[in-house]
């Protein structure tokens, strides 16, 4: 099990949230989006200029900038791409 920050997650790879490093308004916004410990996140693509990236979070695709993604700690899953893997 590797830990990494969300911005380092490669496209088509998934991980589970291990913790949020941000505080205040940004932290609340992330929780509102359903990003809490244990949430599965899959990176589904990057914008043409490489930032922001798009992530599949609870069935919705959300774009997050690199500097915000840095504050989301992940445990990488070995399996990527498939839905419903645990």
């Amino acid at each position, binding site marked *: 099990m590797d830990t990494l920050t969300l911005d380092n997650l490669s496209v088509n790879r998934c991980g589970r949230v291990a913790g949020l490093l941000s505080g205040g308004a940004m932290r609340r*916004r992330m929780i509102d989006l359903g990003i809490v410990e244990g949430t599965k996140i899959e990176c589904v693509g990057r914008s*043409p200029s490489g930032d*922001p990236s798009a992530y599949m979070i609870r069935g919705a695709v959300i774009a997050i900038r690199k500097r915000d993604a840095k504050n989301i700690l992940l445990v990488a899953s070995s399996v990527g791409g498939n839905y419903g893997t645990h």
Partner: protein
Amino acid sequence: MGLTKSSVGTRVIDKEKSFGDFREKYDAVVALAGNPNVGKSTVFNSLTGMKQHTGNWAGKTVASAVGVCRHGGHEYAMVDIPGTYSLMSSSKEEEVARNFLCFSSPDVSVVVCDATCLERNLNLVLQIMEVSKKTVICVNLLDEAKRKGIEIDTELLSSRLGVSVVGVVGRDKKSLGVLLDAVSDTLESDGAYRNVTYCDAIEDAVSILSPVIEKKISLRLNPKWVSLRLLDGDETLVKELSGFVGFDVLGDEDISLALNRADEHLRERGFFADILKEAIASTLVREAEDICEGVVSYEKKGKKERDRSIDKVLTSRAFGYPVMIAFLATVFFITISGANAISELISTFLFYIEGLFGKFLLSIGTPDWLYGALVLGIFRVLAWVVSVMLPPMAIFFPLFTLLEDVGYLPRIAYNLDKPFSKCSACGKQALTMCMGFGCNAAGVVGCRIIDSPRERLLATLTNCFVPCNGKFPMLIALISIFFIGGDGGFFDTLLSALLLTAVILLGVAMTFFCTWLLSKTLLRGTPSSFTLELPPYRRPQIFRVLVRSVLDRTVFVLARAAAIAAPAGLVIWLMANITVGDVSLLRYIADFLDPFASLMGLDGVILVAFILGLPANEIVIPIIIMAYLAEGSIAEIGSLDEMRRIFVDNGWDFVTAGSVILFSLLHSPCATTLMTVKKETGSFRWALLSAVLPTVIGIIVCIIFANLTRLFI
């Protein structure tokens, strides 16, 4: 919700003294809960028909809609509570929903879920099942889910949750009947809370507090849930609860003693306030995830895969930007080729009307000056605006709405976020920029979607650099006349579209430049965080798009333009006909401005037209033509050739046309937009800046362009 007192039924419930009186009238009270936008109101309206009224009893700050529903000889009161994502009371709606479910004790709670994102909805379901003994799950939008390749196993979901789960398709009466059957079955059952199991530390703390709560507060509340909220330190709930039980809950000795012990237990294990909140939230999220496992299945070739393949092209490194430009050019191509034909039809028709109107006025003996003001002034300007503006608008708006409906616009924001963040701005500015293509005033209002005040101001001030619909006809006409000049065949139209695209891209470049400039000077700061949902691509509802864009946008913008054009026409006619010495007032001012204007590659008349065109950009060209012809009214211009002849006769060349195009792109937004800026920013100074900034840039660009090109031509 969406139901107001005026929009629903006749009987108003606040005649009854209290909710208790109200409850006695019906066999059962059914609460209708759910996330926002899951079709809850549709279900509510279908169940209750027209027999609705709004209830606003004491203690309720947000009104809930109430309706009556008869089924199997019973009469149920349906209460539509506000749509929320959670019951954790972080917003007013959540508080209202929670208070109704807990303290008004509905007999059954129906939770409406969206089948296309069931997992997110289950979060609320689990929270409601913690407070409501009798719950029925209504999985709505099954048809839409099916189209997206999502299958829901409602039986498995039902056995996992231990309650009835009914799949519903929109307004289908039959499936709603099944829902009501489930409601009456559930009413007769005993019901039970479904508690979520949290981690050991939390469960232990609850087991300390819960027995005391059960003893003290035996009323219809789940002791475990109440314990959790007390541990959570939910102040609004404590207040509400104290009112409900009739004593200060935290002031009670036994409760506060147990609460302190439980709190201590949690703190010893490292669960401080925020950590506890998050632990509870994430347990719910995981539980929802586990329940969905096997309940929700995606077809292999589902929409999600398809969306991803589309996004791989539309947001790819290689094609992302070219595709955006290609879309823009295509929209312009269709607009230009369609608009030319319709434009001529409408202008022929309107000038025919003018003839009839004029004859009528003369036949009833209207004096010459009034005839001039009405027909040559007001009517002609109006006719011009309608015939020149309506066709491109009637084509451009629906096309644009189509792109919006498909879900492409958020991708534009996604693609352009990096450049915007380089300017310390927000990617959502791309969305407001796109709205500006329709109408800058609408774009300025749209800036509300940007959260950070600084970034919102950047978007507001730079919105007018994309040409609004009032400028398009002018740009299209000038490009066609001076830079294409052919017979309007396929390649001419294509070339016009490409040139117009280039002009627009210049406007976009200016947007970036000014955003950057402002963020380095007046509006310094670092970009705030940015999250943007990229919704699934949808097949556009073409009929709805047509109706919406024609009614909402085209008619609205046209009506506004006409309302301004009519009085402006009168003013222009007066200025052209009132003489100072030997020359008209219009000519007099034009001559005065001429030296400065020619420095910009324009002439005095054009500059006057731009100044007079402040109320609405679309009247700039009519004013120019009117002044040139000096006959005191807008000429009947049947074709672009005629327009070209007038312009050339008055000394226009490529440089003039180029300068006019540049200046029409880069000058003050119309008066409506300026007023909107003032309203949105609450400051006259920002409105002034949003007028001065583009004008100064336009003057500089025109001077450079005109003088450089004159050097070479």
